[in-house]
């Protein structure tokens, strides 16, 4: 570390980082000090994400500025909510929660489509000091059931159809769940026992700030991510996540106040909350919201009509746009677009260049995970894009390429060309604080002061990082992480299924496609009708996003000697690849050559 009186640099394998002294005289990356200043949290140790996002722009000249701009259902116009209105409505929600007895640290789950109530509920619950857990409305009943139980939900905010169809039959399974607040359409007042109408619940609440003082270390967000074992992991973040959200949105997305920002990710997934709600509001930008399903032509109409200046999307959506474009759909170049970015899975070079040709802007790919809380590596707009690469570490983030040692610990690979697992020097502000109820799993993510990401990468001689794949069996499909065990467990709950293995196979559109190989119980007729029945069963319980797209049958599944399904071998067989090292294969289960 070299330093002199005025300018301080920290040298690492990725170059130099400008350093500053913070209010506590600690040496920290300059970008974080700038973010603290930008968020108005200098030296006070007070940080509330809801207040920082909704209230900081709600008085003075910025109060009338549009915070949220919704594409109306008919697609013809926009419905705007100002920063002042968002501040008042989220205050009212926070006070309403407090009146219902919600105390700091309790979990408030939000399961809503992209409607105004979603944004009000997330920000209001944060202001009340509650921990917000957003769930995707695309989930079927089973993933919802598991996550509500795991998170110990105290309050759930959802809409009437979702509650009626997915939750009401299982209500008794969540003893911790005290209140269900329903967002209802005015014309649908069907009585649903055990719920409260949101409007009625908030009728008596006032819209002054609730004044709950939280600090950067107090828990704020609970996101669920999939692992290779059966249960999803509840990733806990503190209010301090806002610091990296602010600095990364500036560096990786070039986001500024008055930008009109559209993030297409579902708010139930981490990107949709972090960058679809929080980061743009922290900057005083306008969040453009479109609740409709994907449609290429309509999306380009949104880009133009909503005057989107910064656009954040996913490779699957980009590839669908490319297909539509190739099939003759006219996609006129948006006139106001300044930056286009992508995350969730690696973006192929062709898609980056397609952006350049059709949008007039290349897609800037970046990398992060639920656990990292914010973008960590990126092709930043200030530098020329390396098509196909996931970029380089942002200011203050130190990345390493490591190999795990068999007895614990890691070896850092220092050579210019390095292949191995991506690790980050632990301790950045938005780093996750725990896996809820699984502290040992949290501990297992760290070694030698590094967070181990589970993603395999190559670092080239220029310092760009390239995604190679997951170190485990987790499937990356349409930007979502899908845990094979969670899908297998649902399939195995069907009486005809003895065993199931779920794998991801390469797909030109969604990255990896979820497929299942099923072993039937003796007596089950393994035919097309059963495959269809199982598909219906999986989709009903899991939802379309998580369920397999195809189900095939096998006489047996390959297992390791310790009894684990060798998904890697199934995948190799499905793709006609070499089967690799079979020394771990349990002999009795070796099936015939495919």
């Amino acid at each position, binding site marked *: 570390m070299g330093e002199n009186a005025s300018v301080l640099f920290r040298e690492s394998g990725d170059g130099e980082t400008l350093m500053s002294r913070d209010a506590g005289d600690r040496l920290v990356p300059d970008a974080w000090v700038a973010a603290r200043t930008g968020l108005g949290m200098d030296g006070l140790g007070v940080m509330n994400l809801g207040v920082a996002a909704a209230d900081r722009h709600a008085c003075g000249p910025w109060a009338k500025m549009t915070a949220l701009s919704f594409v109306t259902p008919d697609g013809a116009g926009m419905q705007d909510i100002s920063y002042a209105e968002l501040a008042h409505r989220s205050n009212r929600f926070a006070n309403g929660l407090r009146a219902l007895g919600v105390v700091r640290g309790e979990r408030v789950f939000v399961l809503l489509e992209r409607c105004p109530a979603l944004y009000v509920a997330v920000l209001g619950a944060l202001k009340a000091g509650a921990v917000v857990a957003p769930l995707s409305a*695309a989930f079927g009943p089973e993933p919802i059931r598991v996550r509500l139980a795991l998170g110990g939900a105290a309050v759930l905010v959802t809409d009437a159809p979702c509650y009626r169809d997915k939750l009401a039959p299982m209500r008794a399974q969540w003893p911790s769940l005290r209140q269900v607040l329903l967002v209802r359409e005015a014309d649908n007042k069907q009585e649903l026992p055990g719920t409260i109408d949101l409007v009625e619940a908030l009728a008596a609440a006032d819209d002054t700030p609730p004044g709950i003082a939280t600090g950067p270390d107090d828990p704020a967000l609970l996101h669920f991510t999939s692992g290779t074992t059966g249960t999803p992991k509840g990733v806990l973040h503190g209010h301090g996540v806002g610091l990296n959200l602010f600095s990364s949105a500036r560096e990786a997305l070039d986001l500024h106040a008055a930008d009109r920002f559209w993030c297409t990710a579902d708010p139930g997934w981490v990107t949709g909350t972090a960058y679809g709600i929080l980061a743009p509001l922290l900057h005083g930008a306008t969040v453009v919201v479109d609740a409709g399903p994907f449609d290429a*032509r309509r999306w380009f109409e949104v880009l133009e009509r909503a005057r989107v200046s910064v656009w954040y999307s996913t490779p699957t959506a980009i590839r669908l746009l490319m297909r539509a*474009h190739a*099939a003759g*759909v006219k996609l006129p170049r948006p006139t106001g677009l300044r930056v286009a970015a992508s995350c969730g899975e690696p973006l192929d070079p062709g898609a980056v260049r397609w952006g350049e040709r059709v949008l007039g802007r290349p897609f800037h790919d970046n990398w992060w995970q639920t656990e990292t809380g914010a973008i960590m590596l990126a092709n930043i707009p200030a530098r020329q894009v390396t098509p196909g690469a996931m970029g380089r570490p942002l200011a203050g983030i130190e990345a390493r390429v490591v190999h795990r040692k068999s007895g614990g610990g890691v070896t850092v690979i220092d050579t210019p060309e390095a292949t191995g697992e991506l690790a980050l020097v632990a301790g950045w502000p938005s780093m996750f604080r725990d896996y809820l109820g699984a502290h040992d799993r949290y501990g297992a993510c760290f070694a030698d002061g590094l967070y181990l990401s589970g993603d395999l990468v190559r670092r080239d001689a220029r310092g760009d990082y390239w995604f190679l794949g997951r170190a485990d069996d987790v499937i990356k499909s*349409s930007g979502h992480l899908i845990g094979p065990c969670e899908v297998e467990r649902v399939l195995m709950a069907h009486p005809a299924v003895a065993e199931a293995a779920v794998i991801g196979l390469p797909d030109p559109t*969604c990255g990896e496609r979820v497929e299942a190989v099923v072993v039937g119980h003796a007596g089950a007729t393994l035919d097309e009708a059963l495959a269809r029945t199982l598909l219906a069963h999986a989709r009903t319980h899991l939802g*379309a996003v998580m369920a397999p797209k195809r189900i095939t049958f096998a006489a047996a599944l390959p297992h390791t000697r310790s009894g684990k399904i060798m998904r890697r071998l199934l995948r190799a067989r499905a793709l006609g690849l070499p089967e690799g090292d079979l020394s771990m294969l349990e002999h009795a289960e070796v099936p015939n050559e495919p």
Partner: protein
Amino acid sequence: MNRDEIRAGVHETLARIAPEADLTAIRADRLLRRQIDLDSMDWLNVIVGLHERFGLDIPGRDYGRLGTLDEIVDYLVAHLGGERE
């Protein structure tokens, strides 16, 4: 191929991709994707399935006109009717 046969063929295509859907409860004049749980991949597979079932090329620029069951059936009737009836 008459309108009812076409509708039955569309149902069959949907049932293959989303076998859990109760197609008798679908409102034919409302957006299909608001009533059946279809992600982007499923929707693409519906289009491909219709192409295979009816032997009709559906150009990408027409996808936006196929939002409801009625729109799909109308589209197929208009493009198949002349040749097959």
